[in-house]
């Protein structure tokens, strides 16, 4: 690990001031990804600003029934077990509990989870010379290499890495809002605009500015969030990253047909993948296999597989059908 200076931020303005004042500084939250990447020699910050003592750990109701605010330093385990989240946004609780291990969930923060880096082997291990994300312009080891865990949607010829988070897939379906604070004040970023597709700059993963701090994630009130579900498909029963995951939320109309559907996919793209075509295909349809399969086909219509990951295309379709079947059966 490279040497770094360490400091503790006492409040949000100081954290932001330190971030801009110190050279190559990074915020330290739970450390579950950052410390690991520092051990690997992928991340080499010269300063770490410990933000764990900032008062950003609460999960609280927003006024006027507008939804729920999750502080950026709330631990994954605490949000998963929170009654507001379990009753109103079950997909988010399920996504948290499907991720990592109890130990890691006790450490990992919501803000850090948003900024997780990919587990692409070629990115994570500097022994591989080519990775456009780690070393812009060096090439992509995965496209012609071993790409079983890689993207099938929205990839570029520069990068086919996937976003590893479960939480973010649920947040995409719930149309969450990321609240950030910087030298110019606070601003909100719609969840769909927070993460970026790789394009020609796979090293540029989010639209968070270098001088900004994530302070909270807002979950808006909605008619679909309460009937929601997270399905994760992985190589072992627990404690593994998703090959494919699906977050679904449904609002059923008085006529028994689907009024609103929200679907997001994990393990398939550089960002949590909102399946807008599938949502449109479901609106106004009676819930059932026919509509579910049509939605799944629409979601994967533009999918492209590589040598080892083509299986993900059919797996994603079947996972969408299964997740929709499960969520329809929910009371």
């Amino acid at each position: 690990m490279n040497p770094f200076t360490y400091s503790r931020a006492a409040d949000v303005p100081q954290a932001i001031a330190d971030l801009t004042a110190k050279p190559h500084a990074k915020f330290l939250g739970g450390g579950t990804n950052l410390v690991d990447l520092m051990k690997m020699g992928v991340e080499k910050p010269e300063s770490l600003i410990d933000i764990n003592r900032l008062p950003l750990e609460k999960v609280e109701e927003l006024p006027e029934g507008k939804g729920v605010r999750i502080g950026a330093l709330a631990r994954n385990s605490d949000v998963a077990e929170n009654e507001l989240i379990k009753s109103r946004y079950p997909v988010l609780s399920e996504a948290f509990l499907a991720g990592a291990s109890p130990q890691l969930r006790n450490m990992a923060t919501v803000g850090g989870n948003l900024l997780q880096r990919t587990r692409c082997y070629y990115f994570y291990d500097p022994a591989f010379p080519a990775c456009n994300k780690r070393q812009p312009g060096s090439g992509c080891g995965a496209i012609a290499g071993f790409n079983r865990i890689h993207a099938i949607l929205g990839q570029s010829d520069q990068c086919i890495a996937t976003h590893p988070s479960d939480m973010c897939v649920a947040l995409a379906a719930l149309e969450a809002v990321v609240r950030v604070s910087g030298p110019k004040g606070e601003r909100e970023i719609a969840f769909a605009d927070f993460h970026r597709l790789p394009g020609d700059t796979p090293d540029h993963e989010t639209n968070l500015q270098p001088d900004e701090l994530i302070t909270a994630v807002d979950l808006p009130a909605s008619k679909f969030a309460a009937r929601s579900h997270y399905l994760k498909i992985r190589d072992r029963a627990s404690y593994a990253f998703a090959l494919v995951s699906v977050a679904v939320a449904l609002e059923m109309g008085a006529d028994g047909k689907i009024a609103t559907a929200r679907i997001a996919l994990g393990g398939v793209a550089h960002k949590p993948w909102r399946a807008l075509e599938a949502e449109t295909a479901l609106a106004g349809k009676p819930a059932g296999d026919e509509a579910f399969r049509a939605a799944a086909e629409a979601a994967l219509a533009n999918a492209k597989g590589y040598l080892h990951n083509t299986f993900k295309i059919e797996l994603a379709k079947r996972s969408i059908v299964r997740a929709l079947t499960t969520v329809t059966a929910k009371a």
Partner: protein
Amino acid sequence: MSENQHEQTPAADLDQWLIFGDPATRRKFLKQVAGTGAAIALSSKFAASTSQAAEPVDTAAPAATPPSAAAIDVRLTLNGHETSVRVDPRTTLLDALRERLQLTGTKKGCDHGQCGACTVLVNGRRINSCLSLAITHEGDEVTTIEGLAKGDELHPVQAAFLEHDGFQCGYCTPGQICSAVALLKEGHAQSDAEIREWMSGNICRCGAYTNIVAAIRAAKEKTAAA
């Protein structure tokens, strides 16, 4: 080394073939393995080693990151004792415990948060000490495998692991036990399936899972009955 000595000391044989590397490394390894057994059986020794740990030992093993100009003092309550240790900012809680505070019960497995051998309790919650920088724990209460027993009385989870043979080589055991202690407190041991899911952050390469689940189930029943 003469041929005669070679035959009489199988351990030296291992040295020759570099199974454990140099003899110093082997002794360190054996000490660590012995520590695992002791973690389960010899609780009174632990109380002693814990109180020793209250005084920081400045003889860091070569493997530990040496304190540098940037070293920072960290005060924490370690197994009930106020402790202070001076560490380089890069030192993980795991390395601070093992290499600076001589509490080698907590094990280094993968060192990347994937195996759970390094599990300790911080403010009552289980975490992977290998991914946590020691300097971030100022003022925290840290409990390691050495701090679970009360004098000669084993923690119910320790006793259950012994009774149900919840281990083979024992290397993952301190982490398994710390994780199980937290699991019971969290209330996630309502069924065998739930125990398996909520213990998934602790890998056992010997595959002692059946007995680990039995031990945790038994500890839960015993604690509930008490």
